[in-house]
């Protein structure tokens, strides 16, 4: 990876970032924070302007590109309607003791404390499945419970 950096007097700085081959992204950072991004497909081609962002947008967008984007949350105002409970997605592995059981017979709530609020099967999500619902290998159980209860479910499914 090569980055070429040059001064643009009175404007700011220019960075050229080499993509594959001759393809280059050209980023012009203005003194006022504005970023203009161009792309030049080859040495002979003309740069085409792709987009421009202000300083704040560019920083936020940069974290997305970096893969580190998160929305900072004010911890004092966070409201946890679930109390200690969390929602987990757990795979039902082939060969599990629960395979082929209906929800009633599986007695998941009694044995682990977690409640099954939905089951994802292939592309489908069955919300609030009834007691007759039969579990199959490959199902993903969406359950509500405390961390300990979720751990108990993990252990049960693996058994």
């Amino acid at each position, binding site marked *: 990876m090569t980055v070429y950096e*040059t*001064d*643009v*007097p*009175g*404007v*700011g700085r*220019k960075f050229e970032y080499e993509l594959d081959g001759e393809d280059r992204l*050209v980023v*012009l950072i203005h*003194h*006022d924070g504005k970023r*203009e991004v*161009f*792309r*030049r*497909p*080859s*040495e*002979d*081609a*003309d*740069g*085409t*302007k*792709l987009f421009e962002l202000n300083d704040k947008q560019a920083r936020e967008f940069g974290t997305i590109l970096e893969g580190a984007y998160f929305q900072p949350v004010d911890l004092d105002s966070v409201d946890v309607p679930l109390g200690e409970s969390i929602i987990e997605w757990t795979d039902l592995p082939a060969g599990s003791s629960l395979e082929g059981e209906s929800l009633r017979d599986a007695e998941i709530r009694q044995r682990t404390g977690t409640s099954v609020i939905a089951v994802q099967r292939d592309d489908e999500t069955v919300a609030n499945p009834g007691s007759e619902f039969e579990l199959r290998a490959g199902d993903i159980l969406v359950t509500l419970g405390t961390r300990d209860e979720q751990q108990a479910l993990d252990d049960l499914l693996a058994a």
Partner: protein
Amino acid sequence: MAGEILIEVGIALTALAIGGALAVRVNQSVIPMYIVAGILVGPNVPTALGPIPLTLVENHEFIDVLAELGVVFLLFFLGLEFNIERLVEGWNKLVGIGTVDFVLNFGVGIAIGFAFGFTLIETLFVAGIVYISSSAVITKSLIDRGWIANPESEAILGTLVFEDILIAVYLAVLSAVALGGGGLDEAAISVGIAFAFLGGLTLLAWYGTEYVERAFTVDSDELFLLRVLGVTTLVAGGALALGVSEAVAAFFVGTAFSTTGHTHRIETVVAPARDLFAAVFFFSIGLTTDVTVIAGVAALLAVAVVATTLTKLASGTAGGFLYGLNRRRSLRVGVGLVPRGEFSLVIAALATSVGTGALGTTIPAFAVGYVLLMSILGTTLMGYADSLTAYSGEVSLSGSS
């Protein structure tokens, strides 16, 4: 009385605001429109539009002061953005392109000056006015047209850097000679004083980086702005009192800042003040311009516009080849360097301040007419060059939009 002055200032600033808005709308540089605004509301022709009187703003002292600050800070920023490392690094490429640019364009200016019967000093003024390209107009156009992402922008900006250092030396010598007046001895003495003073400033700029760094470290933007404005204006004023070009002094103060960590802050905090002063400078040029005098130099203007457009095209294109660019890009370098602007007017303002013979009337009027034509012609040519030299190969991404 105070009320009248306030109204005049209000009219001046409003005229600038309207002129600037119009310029942006038609994708032109603001500089010619600021001058036109000054011509329109100033004391010279046109004096009335039907029943509406158009002599709204007199050329008051406060306009002169602000305009003078405009010159000082235009050059201060030129110094600030002047990058000695870039000049040294790219020297091998820049010296070729810069020399061709200087020899052709300054040379044709000298030829035009003598052909129209000007004296040696007057001819040097004409040559300077037609030689120097406009950093402001060109940089704006490079960004507007997207050329900034292409290799030709390197050659264009490199040439401008070379011109910057030459114009600093040129202004120092010319103002010493022109303001010193009299015989060869006096001229030699004032050139000597100029170079001693500027040499001192250069040494300070070179060795005083740490001191400047510390002296200007302050939390408040307001205090920072005042310090920069205060010191720069004081040094420029001191220079002028010694008969040294205030503009060149400001240039060296700018270079003293260019190696410190304050550069970025100056660009954000001080640039708005520069923009205001510079706008008033262009406006005041318009105020003092008598359009009838411009009409009187029509022949000179016509010859200069045609000849210097061609020489800039030629020198820029040749420079592009020296820079190792292909034909299409080299031609763009030539076209890109055609606009003239603020620095030609700075030279004209120096001519006005000398004020003897043709320097008092003809040359400033010529400079105004020339800059009006060349800034607009240059920007327009860049639009045409865009389509004439457009890349005709496969274009990804932009093709779909």
